[in-house]
């Protein structure tokens, strides 16, 4: 176990290094810069002063080494646009995105496995076709369009749900206010991951149910519900866990669009602001943070693996 942990930590560190390297160069080599995006009137000399103050007159590779040195000491720098520490800005926003992600994942996993199993049981029948059809629609309709349509329907026409914001927080927290703000963003994010889980569960279950041990279970006199939900599903879960691990990064990037549509002040909206304002330290900070989240999720997936499948105990 210890060896496994050390191994994984090493791999994660290398991954993190590569991700930061690529992002740093991409962001810094993109045309424009903090000085050119400023809206106020400024003379050439004033712009030059800003560039020097922010240290942007140094070559890119030297700046990267500098950034890395600080980052390794836990200092992700100061945001160009607000002069607050990057960590602070991220920590203000991250909980909101995690909130969305957790709700979406929990709902998608429960519904996805449920519909996937139904689809297997009703293979080739009406139920299977309906689930398949809805899945394809869910996969092909773009999130931004669906989001706008939902706002049009539920916020403007029926006036049931608020169209934007994260709802009352802190002292004014109120249950319905919180839930009503969550419904639409979670719904949109769910449509981007749920179909994948349904289809994966279906194919995984179909493969497992043709295995010999399923025949054995029936020969023992197991009820069909036990055959499906105990003997088959436990085995089918192994690949399903993999796909869930792979969907989490997709979910985080999907959050960018969803958060923008619903004015959800999470990491998604923050990264848009940061990129637009050429706030290099903030972009880098968010990248590092998201990479850590993804790596961490994959660790959890690997751990779940060994819980579900006794054959992979000694990873």
């Amino acid at each position, binding site marked *: 176990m210890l060896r496994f942990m050390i191994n994984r930590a090493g791999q994660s560190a290398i991954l993190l290094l590569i991700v930061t390297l690529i992002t740093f160069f991409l962001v810094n080599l993109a045309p424009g810069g903090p000085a050119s995006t400023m809206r106020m009137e400024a003379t050439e000399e004033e712009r030059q002063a800003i560039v020097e103050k922010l240290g942007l007159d140094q070559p890119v590779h030297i700046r990267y080494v500098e950034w890395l040195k600080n980052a390794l000491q836990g200092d992700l720098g100061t945001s160009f646009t607000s002069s607050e520490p990057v960590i602070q800005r991220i920590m203000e926003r991250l909980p909101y995105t995690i909130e969305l992600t957790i709700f979406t994942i929990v709902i998608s996993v429960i519904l996805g496995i449920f519909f996937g199993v139904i689809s297997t049981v009703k293979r080739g029948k009406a139920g299977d076709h309906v689930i398949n059809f809805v899945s394809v629609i869910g996969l092909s309709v773009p999130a931004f369009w669906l989001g706008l349509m939902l706002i049009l329907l539920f916020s403007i026409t029926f006036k049931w749900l608020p169209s934007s914001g994260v709802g009352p927080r802190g002292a004014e927290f109120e249950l319905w206010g919180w839930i009503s703000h969550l419904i639409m963003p979670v719904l949109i994010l769910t449509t981007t991951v749920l179909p994948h889980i349904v289809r994966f569960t279906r194919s995984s279950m179909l493969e497992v149910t043709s295995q010999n041990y399923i*025949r054995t279970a*029936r020969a023992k006199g*197991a009820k069909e519900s036990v055959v499906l939900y105990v*003997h088959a599903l436990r*085995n089918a879960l192994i690949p399903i866990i993999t796909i869930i691990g792979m969907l989490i990064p997709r979910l985080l990037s999907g959050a960018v669009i969803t958060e923008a549509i619903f004015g959800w002040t999470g990491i998604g909206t923050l990264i848009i602001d940061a990129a637009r304002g050429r706030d290099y330290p903030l972009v880098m900070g968010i990248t590092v943070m998201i990479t850590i989240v993804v790596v961490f999720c994959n660790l959890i997936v690997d751990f779940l693996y060994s819980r579900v499948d*006794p054959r992979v105990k000694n990873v």
Partner: protein
Amino acid sequence: MSNKILEVKNLVTGYQGKDGFMKPVDGVSFDIEKGETICIVGESGSGKSVTSMSIMRLVEFENGRILDGQILFCGEELSKKSNEEMRQIRGSKISMIFQEPLTALNPVFTIGKQITEAILFHRSMGKKEAWLRAEELVRLVGISDPKQRLKQYPHELSGGMRQRAMIAIALASEPDLLIADEPTTALDVTIEAQILELLRSLREERGMSIMLITHDIGVAAEMANRIIIMYAGKVMEVAETKDLFDQPLHPYSKGLLESVPRMDGERGVPLKSISGSIPRLNEVPPGCRFSPRCPFVTDKCHKQEPALEKRGTRQVACWHVDELFEKDLLAIKTEGGVPIES
């Protein structure tokens, strides 16, 4: 009350194919008496496994269907039972063990869980009690250190141990009939002998009947009271083991017996084999199904299918039994022996 535990009459089992039903079992009849071991012998594709899966009514889960015939178990018609009634019979009155114990056991559950589960499907008792019973069963089938083994997963056991665990599962509710579908095919020879010995002693202790499916006529010789020879979905011959080995009555049985290596055979001479191969389900020949490969084939064989007919205690399906028997053409003549290099 008859002494028969199982009577299969004119069983036809089909799988839905592109053009109509494919029938891997096409009119099979046989019976099993209480406490008897019968062996169904035949090449791969002769319909042995599908016959056993039909008795268990497991074919329905694999897109198959019993199209015709009767399966009487202790006088009760199995093919007309509801799914729930059938579920209660499976694993309790009729149990089954399978060919590959590694794939037949669920890889993600411990042996103990898989045995206690089989007990609890049919009896109401506490989990602890079931676990103790599982321990007893595991000891009965000759697994050492039962407490430890019950906590292990299938991949942690050897092939022989796995098959013993399978047998323990099958014995969970003390069945009247045990169907063993090629139980030793995936095992090596010494383990095979141990498993066969275990099955034999269990049958003697518990008085259950065994239906053993095998393609190895040597296994059948060791185990069976009676042997049923199947070919392409039909029964070719039924005979007491001794009678069959003394004098097969069907050319196919003769062919099977002659293809067995013998210790007293001459070395270096190739073993006899039956030329050709079993027909595919969609290419079953008209007339006798064995006719394309039969050395004694006549026009009649190609045109008309012979029925399974009684001859004393035996049954055989061949047009020319009497003729071949009189001319002594059915005597086993093994020329070949085991080619042993010195």
